[in-house]
């Protein structure tokens, strides 16, 4: 097919002096406001690295594995709301990014990945370190592009950033052959919107907003079900305003954690597979559900047919494809969460729901999160509770994936958005520590904590050295249960406790930390937990690994088994 024709409304402008493709790339990053990018060099990206050598204001953070670069870019983006950037060389470098890019796709995180490619003349010849990276990443990016002309470097990068951050955010990849990076050109940057044909709808239609206002005002048992879209859209203020004005209870998805102050009594915390009993009961009994920036993921809904069986749905999302995908929407509203919730909050009338609240409060009293503390053993939930207490919910917490993730989701109550960073859609082990590093680069003045499992930490812990090199004040709390705990739990519940490949023999993490030049603390008894956490939170000049030996037999409850419903919820009583 013919080369893409320049969209008519986009002018080429800003002529400048001659530069190499790589220098144009760096200049384009600068223009997008990129101050830090995470990456690892290699043959095909040598020209890019040479250009970065001169760029004082675009700081490159060298990681030890490209997966870490991608996760750090995600952590950076989720903590800051800006686009995260990562870079890798061709072939193995680029394929090492794949997990992180997929993670960004599933959780709608704005990330731009820049990869080196083999020179144009040998593309398609199985050249050394050649991989068809635009082919590989086609289903896991919002858009990707192989740059075949040096004049196309600047516009491609501009389009990449625009697409990554607008509409439903997501990852974008730009693949640049080495000879394109080396070639000279006079760069031309686009002026105005770089992708004029892409224009997401932002304001819901007034008619639908009125319909939503009426449905909420007449509701007897309404619930707001809020997801990560609130955080992407910076709509926390509007969500809180709507909840306060109507007194409608709010439940949050894993991705939506912190979308409103979780210590607010209007907030019921997380729903879904490991959500609170009261949040799940409320949704189960609701007659009207306002879903916003959420996608009815199976970890939230369980068996779709039985999810919120009495409810009619108002569904707000920037992505029209989400509306009606899993559950029919009675009032569909395509738009930006901030704008639509703003309009709703301005017009909403409070329904009469005192009886509904009495019911919810009764559930909340009766079924709080709880845990047992066996003699001498440290319960992981206790540690999570202490982290919440010591930080007051004001730290940024990044978690890995597994039991500890769900316990942190249950016990950590962020006071606001961009404070809970966890791999939701993809459930990527190895995510937590690199994401915490990315968050710390984005927010150096905030307390950032990584809470990881003994299994997941071992997937990316080689990058402890990166945290040491940059003297990052970063406590890494390992909830060490000597197991792939979540796998062991499923085996206990659903496979006759046959612990196939789920028990870990671990290295001594504290000593590993010391070998990297970090601090390491090993905690074996409950009475040591508080002091160790307090100390780790106070360290300001480098990472601290706190290896906490936890009760290996603890299960994460409540739990709605996969594909089941609230009726089958396993409750710890």
């Amino acid at each position, binding site marked *: *097919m013919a080369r893409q024709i320049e969209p008519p409304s986009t002018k080429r402008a800003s002529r400048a002096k001659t530069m190499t493709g790589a220098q144009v790339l760096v200049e384009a990053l600068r223009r997008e406001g990129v101050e830090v990018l995470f990456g690892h060099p290699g043959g095909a990206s040598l020209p890019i690295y040479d250009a970065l050598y001169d760029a004082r204001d675009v700081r490159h953070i060298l990681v030890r594995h490209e997966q870490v670069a991608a996760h750090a870019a995600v952590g950076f983006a989720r903590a800051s709301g800006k686009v995260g950037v990562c870079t890798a060389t061709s072939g193995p470098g680029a394929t090492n990014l794949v997990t992180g890019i997929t993670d960004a796709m599933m959780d709608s995180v704005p990330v731009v990945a820049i990869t080196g490619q083999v020179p144009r003349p040998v593309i398609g010849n199985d050249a050394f370190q050649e991989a068809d990276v635009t082919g590989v990443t086609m*289903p896991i990016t919002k858009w990707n592009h*192989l740059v075949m002309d040096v004049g196309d470097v600047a516009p491609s990068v501009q389009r990449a950033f625009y697409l990554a951050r607008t509409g*439903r955010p997501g990852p974008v990849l730009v693949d640049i052959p080495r000879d394109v990076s080396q070639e000279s050109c006079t760069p031309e940057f686009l002026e105005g919107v770089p*992708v004029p044909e892409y224009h997401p709808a932002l304001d819901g239609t007034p008619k639908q907003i009125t319909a939503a206002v009426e449905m909420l005002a007449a509701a007897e048992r309404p619930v707001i079900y809020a997801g990560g879209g609130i955080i992407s859209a910076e709509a926390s203020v509007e969500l809180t305003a709507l909840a306060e004005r109507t007194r409608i209870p709010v439940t949050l998805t894993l991705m939506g954690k912190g979308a409103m102050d979780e210590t607010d009594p209007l907030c019921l915390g997380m729903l879904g597979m490991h959500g609170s009993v009261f949040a799940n009961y409320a949704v189960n009994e609701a007659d009207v559900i306002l879903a916003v920036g959420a996608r009815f993921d199976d970890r939230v809904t369980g068996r779709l047919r039985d999810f919120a069986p009495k409810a009619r749905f108002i569904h707000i999302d920037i992505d029209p494809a989400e509306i009606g995908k899993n559950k029919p929407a009675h009032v569909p509203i395509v738009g930006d969460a901030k704008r639509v919730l703003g309009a709703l909050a301005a017009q909403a009338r409070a329904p009469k729901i005192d009886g509904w609240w009495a019911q919810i409060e009764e559930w909340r009293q009766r079924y709080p999160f709880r845990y047992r503390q066996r003699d001498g053993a440290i319960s992981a939930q206790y540690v999570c509770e202490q982290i919440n207490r010591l930080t007051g919910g004001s730290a940024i917490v990044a978690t890995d994936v597994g039991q500890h993730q769900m316990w942190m989701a249950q016990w950590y109550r962020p006071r606001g958005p961009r404070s809970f960073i966890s791999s939701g859609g993809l459930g990527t082990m190895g995510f937590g520590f690199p994401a915490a590093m990315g968050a710390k680069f984005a927010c150096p003045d905030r307390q950032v904590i990584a809470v990881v499992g003994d299994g997941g930490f071992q997937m990316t812990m080689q990058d402890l050295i990166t945290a040491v090199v940059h003297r990052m004040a970063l406590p890494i709390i390992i909830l060490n249960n000597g197991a792939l705990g979540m796998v062991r739990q499923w085996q206990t519940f659903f496979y006759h406790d046959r612990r196939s490949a789920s028990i870990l023999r671990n290295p001594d993490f504290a000593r590993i930390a010391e070998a990297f030049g970090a601090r390491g603390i090993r905690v074996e008894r409950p009475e040591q937990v508080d002091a160790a956490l307090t100390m780790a939170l106070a360290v300001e000049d480098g990472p601290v690994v706190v290896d906490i030996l936890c009760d290996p037999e603890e299960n994460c409850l409540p739990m709605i088994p996969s594909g089941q419903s609230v009726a089958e919820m396993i409750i710890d009583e």
Partner: protein
Amino acid sequence: MSETHTATISVLVENSPGVLVRVAGLIRRRGVNIHSLSVGPTENPAVSRMTIVVDTPPDRTEQFAKQLRKLVEVRRATSIDGAATVDRELALIKVNATPGTRMEIMEIANVFRANVVDLTDRTMTLEVTGKGEKVDAILSLLSKHGIREVARTGQVTLVRGPQAT
């Protein structure tokens, strides 16, 4: 899997490298069979039209169109199930034909307004245009003579009247 039917989706795409793969990949990923797919330029040289016929559960068709619209290179995607449309397909059919059976085949061709586009002492090639069912019908009538080869373009579709497809 719930019951399936064939649905037609018309897609306007940017005429740029990789678009066909993106569209096909999006459908493949959902485990759906592409019944036919035809691509060609439109009145605007920057834009191509794809007409895709897929086997899909009826309630999934609109979801398909929505997912297709999310591809940056897709300008428009419409599920044209139920709309009044003109649907056409072209087929080339190479059938065994001896001097003794030629007349009979010509008769069939006449009824279906098919053109004879090639003739040898053993074969005849017909060109027929119409809805898919019409092509199916002529194929079944010709089958007793022995069909050697068939090439079908797949369906192309436009909505009737001034409204855009």
